[in-house]
């Protein structure tokens, strides 16, 4: 009975999972927002970060942006495939998302190693502290998204939890796109200006 009523209560409302995800994203906006605000303010205050900022590779970052944006596309297509109840497309698109996300992390790791090799460590000055803080926190989020997507991909491949897969793909998708949006702002803040 409780199940029936709970479901009945839910008609014509936003699914709880989606609502919860949006509230979670709201708090995430505040977290990244706080860090970004600190970065912008300190940069305006201190000034003279340009020569440090000149050492980060815009090319690599641009490539990474392309990867992440594309992974958002595959994520959406996975969701569309779920709507179309096409399990094979779901699996493939999720797989693509996972691979693109992993590629992003790989490129990031390569970028880090290069900078560390040149002595640009997190303790090499305010700019580098913020650089590693911001991109590192973002990378952690990407990693979390990759893990979640991999789980979904496996579930879809092994034809598990079909009834819920629809919701799950949508919620993880929301998170994944949010991580993408964060990067869309990180990229110009850290690499372009």
């Amino acid at each position, binding site marked *: *009975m*409780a199940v029936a009523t*709970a*479901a009945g209560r839910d008609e014509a409302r936003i699914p709880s999972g989606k609502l919860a995800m949006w509230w979670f994203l709201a708090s995430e906006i505040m977290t990244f927002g*706080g860090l970004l605000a*600190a970065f912008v303010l300190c940069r305006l205050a201190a000034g003279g970060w340009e020569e440090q900022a000149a050492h980060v590779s815009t090319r690599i970052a641009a490539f990474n942006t392309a990867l992440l944006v594309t992974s958002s596309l595959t994520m959406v297509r996975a969701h569309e495939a779920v709507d179309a109840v096409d399990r094979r497309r779901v699996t493939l698109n999720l797989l693509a998302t996972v691979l693109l996300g992993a590629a992003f992390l790989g490129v990031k790791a390569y970028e880090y190693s290069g900078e560390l090799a040149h002595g640009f460590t997190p*303790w090499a000055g*305010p700019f*580098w502290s913020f650089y590693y803080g911001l991109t590192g926190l973002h990378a952690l989020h990407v990693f979390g998204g990759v893990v979640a997507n991999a789980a979904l991909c496996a579930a879809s491949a092994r034809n598990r939890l079909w*009834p819920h897969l629809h919701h799950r793909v949508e919620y993880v998708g929301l998170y994944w796109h949010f991580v993408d949006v964060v990067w869309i702002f990180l990229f110009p803040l850290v690499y372009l200006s």
Partner: protein
Amino acid sequence: MSHVAAAAHGHHPEPGFWRKYVFSVDHKVIGTQYMFLGLVMALLGGASVYVIRWQLAWPESQIPLTGWIPEPAMYEGHLDPAFYNQLVTMHGTIMVFFVAMPILLGGLGNFLLPLMIGADDMALPRLNMMSFWTIFTAAMVLVASFFVPGGPASAGWTGYPPLSADAQYTGVEWGLNLWILALALEFGSFLMGGVNFLTTAINMRAPGLSFFRLPLMVWMQLTAAVLFMLSVGPLIAGAVMLLLDRTLGTSFFLPARGGDPLLWQHLFWFFGHPEVYVVLLPGVGAVLEVLPAFARKPIFGYRAIVYSTIVAGVLSFIVWAHHMFIAGIDPRLATPFSITTILISVPFAVLLFAMIATLWGGSITFATPMLFAIGFLVTFLVGGVTGIFNGSAALDIFIHDTYFVVGHFHYTLFPTVFFGGFAGIYYWYPKIFGRMLHEGLGKLHFWLTFVTFNLVFLPMFRLGMGGHMRRIYNPLNYEFLRPLEPVNQFVTVAAIALLVSQVPFALNFLGALVWGRRAPANPWNATTLEWATASPPPHGNFATVPTVHHGPYEYSRPDTAADFVPQHVPLPAPPAAEAVGAAGI
């Protein structure tokens, strides 16, 4: 979300011991777990008070009953200054994050929210379980920090850098890292909780339960959840930065490395002030439930209360710098923030006046919950008016960082957590445990607490006016503080009495579990939905989901024989005016 509900009910028939009492997804069990966690941590936070107060009253003396504390914390009964700072830090951290929040939000919130909205459980029960075990881990980490070399954090509960950002300034190595970790986990836990509360209240309300028919406790819990979720982010970011400063040697907050200490203060207080209301509102909510039930009257100005709560919540985001008037911020910022700060007294004035107006023309029974509710009104009034002093930037030049501030925030938090929280615990204990508490012990507990509390904290305003600084290990070092020592000693004696005053509660709380009279479903003849089911409520809460017909506080209607009409019972042919009043359209 049907699969979530299914998860909540995957456990019929009754689960085994572990799934039922330890890793339970039942919001009632989880709420109780939160409550016990809070009460246990309160013992720790309270014990620290004894040492701190004794040190302030008789600085050069040996502190009795502390022989078991090893060096370097104590040297044959004498307190080490560093350990004094650590106790002050831990007292604040524990009481705010591990006592107030678990009991008021985690405990009462978790237990009551689904019951009050006629739901079978939280919207996301497994997330709920995860949130408890996260804060449990956080509490363990915090306790563990007492035992690492160098001892626990000692930079004050606000953890201002540079003191907190580099071990060389305090000699505390891992203690402070663990402190940051514990806070991060605690924030994570209440983020999950907040997500859950909001989703539940939006999606799981019983048929007919429009937002303006919600019990005010639910409104308060929701506002608190929103405030927490929207304010904690920047501090999480700050905590990460501080941890990196300590471990990797990054340069966020250390001027020596090009950082800015004020940045932390801003990030901390941007969260810190809304946090005050996160703790405050649930206590207010409990009082708002108790007052009508024992005055047998509808709450006065339901809408006014809801709106002023929201206004106060919004204002709480634009006042944070009043914690930093003399912290070196641009002096031109002081007056705007002073104005917004003092403006907050308006919504709270409305709130308090509405509570008092609720008593007007009532028929008041002085059961223990009501005593605590009235105690809340009296003490919170003091906290409110003294806030005006602290809110004035000009006066802060003198009283900031003095005991006037200490007195003030204890007069706001203590009424909330103690009088509000105890009003709630005494009021809902029958619902939670299915047993009645002992009235005599309850009344004794109230009077002892009420008297000793005022004896402890009223003199602190006197100390503050004398210029007595906070966090001073030995006031006798200062000539101008020597005359105040008798006041310090008086406060200490009263504080010990206040601690002892909690014994009747402990006896009552634990004793009633065994010997308490069995509680009926609705011992107080109250109207809200949680009283419509058995005490304690069964797994799944309601045999059949109740339908709500009217607002939460239908007491003493002229047109009914009984002096209350529960929310799930239709009103006798409501006149049009009443219908508009009750149903929020």
